[in-house]
């Protein structure tokens, strides 16, 4: 059984790789390569998997999940320039893919008991999302 919680943050980023030329960056990332940055209202769906506790009827206390997300993700990401203010994006390009993987890495160690982190799905716009499930 899977249950998910949605949280949101707003942040700016610049998608440019130091290993690519200016022309390659413009081609790969399009307008997202603007060196002055731009931002999104990100929406994050975090899903945990497990069987409900027979007493509480819950896989994981969603208040606790909310606290973990607030503490480990939102307080770090919200209203920040990701490239400058959030590890590891000084060296890793803050694409939607890398943001989903980083959020997974921040949250996974704190999910315990009956629950296992199942999926981190991040929406950059309503049209574009990335889902990471901890697969290598």
């Amino acid at each position, binding site marked *: 059984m899977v249950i998910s919680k949605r949280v949101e943050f707003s942040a700016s980023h610049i*998608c440019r*790789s130091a290993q690519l030329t200016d022309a390659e960056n413009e081609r*790969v990332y399009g307008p997202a390569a603007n060196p002055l940055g731009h931002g999104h209202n990100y929406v994050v769906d975090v899903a945990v998997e497990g069987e409900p506790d027979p007493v509480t009827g819950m896989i994981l206390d969603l208040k606790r999940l909310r606290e973990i997300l607030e503490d480990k993700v939102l307080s770090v990401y919200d209203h920040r320039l990701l490239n400058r203010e959030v590890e590891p994006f000084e060296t890793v390009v803050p694409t939607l893919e890398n943001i989903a993987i980083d959020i997974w890495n921040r949250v996974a160690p704190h999910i315990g008991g009956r629950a296992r982190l199942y999926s981190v799905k991040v929406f950059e716009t309503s049209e574009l*999302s990335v889902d990471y499930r901890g697969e290598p």
Partner: protein
Amino acid sequence: MTVRLSKRYGFAASHRLHSPALTDEENRETYGKCNNPYGHGHNYEVELTVRGTVDPVTGRVVDLALLDDVAEKQFLAPFRHRNLNEEVPAFRTTVPTTENLGLEVDRRLREAWPGAFPKGGPCLEMVRIRETDRNICEISAKAEKAVLRAEEKPGT
């Protein structure tokens, strides 16, 4: 790292649900209002989900410009503001239900996929087509069969 990326596209088109294998009465019973001889239309939404590993240099699982391009060429341009029954060859012989429309989008994408990503690309994991908010069909690469989510009635 393996991730899934989903991108949603839209087009508007008209269709009529009518099977030559059924009588007029059976067609009316099966398709209801969608059997109207003059046709009707929808704002369709198609969500494509691709799965692959993240390129360590670009941080991307797919070149979005190439994904947009294959979507535009394979189904957006051919279906946008068209009468599907009259103007898309596949629907001269099959009924353009949400299921068949999804299967046609899936078929066109799979045929064009190797040419669209010449340097290798992600795999197409799912095509999800939304005719209305209450009528959504998913074609998943694993199951290779369509799952219709119709809360009220089939193909409107």
